[in-house]
């Protein structure tokens, strides 16, 4: 499967996807960390994808999303934004509202953190 196909599969098949530099246990960029921390504060289940193993991953992702920077956060298949937006939405409480609306009111109960490696 091509990177594009794998990326689409993760975006469509996961509640919350974080495309980041590094992994949640070994974050390689301050902005990826800002997005991860905001998602954690909101109690979001996170499926993380490290874009660093191959430059092609980032290129394919940007072609799909039209978003030029990393990190990128998707909720139920839709781009929510990068670190600035996710932080802003978390602080205003809108992130929690979005998560409740799209994942159900008890979304925090199923909170998990998984990492998906593309190949």
């Amino acid at each position, binding site marked *: 499967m091509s990177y594009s196909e794998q990326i689409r599969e993760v975006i469509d098949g996961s509640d919350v996807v974080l495309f980041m530099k590094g992994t949640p246990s070994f974050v390689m960029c301050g902005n990826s960390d800002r997005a991860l921390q905001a998602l954690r504060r909101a109690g979001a289940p996170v499926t993380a994808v490290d874009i660093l193993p191959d430059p092609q991953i980032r290129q394919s992702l940007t072609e799909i999303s039209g978003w030029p*920077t990393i990190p990128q956060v998707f909720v139920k298949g839709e781009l*929510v934004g990068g670190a*600035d*937006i996710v932080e802003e939405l978390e602080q205003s409480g809108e992130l929690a509202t979005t998560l409740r609306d799209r994942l159900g009111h008890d979304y925090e109960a199923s909170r998990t953190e998984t990492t998906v490696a593309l190949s």
Partner: protein
Amino acid sequence: MSADRLTALLERAFPDATELQVVDRTGGGDHFQVVVTSASLHGLSLVEQHRRVYEALSEPLADGTIHELRIKTKGTT
């Protein structure tokens, strides 16, 4: 890349901006924070607002002169 050049690009994209701020966060000419408040952003989602800023700065973003960009936008009525 100077903050002035970024400001010029943003002024061209947001001629009606009531607030336009560009800060070189490290002094190195590659880590910037921009603030844009404009009526043309009104009614758009944050994703769409930030997309407008990315479009305005697509050149320095594409050629790598902007290493990191923090964005804060607001749409006014």
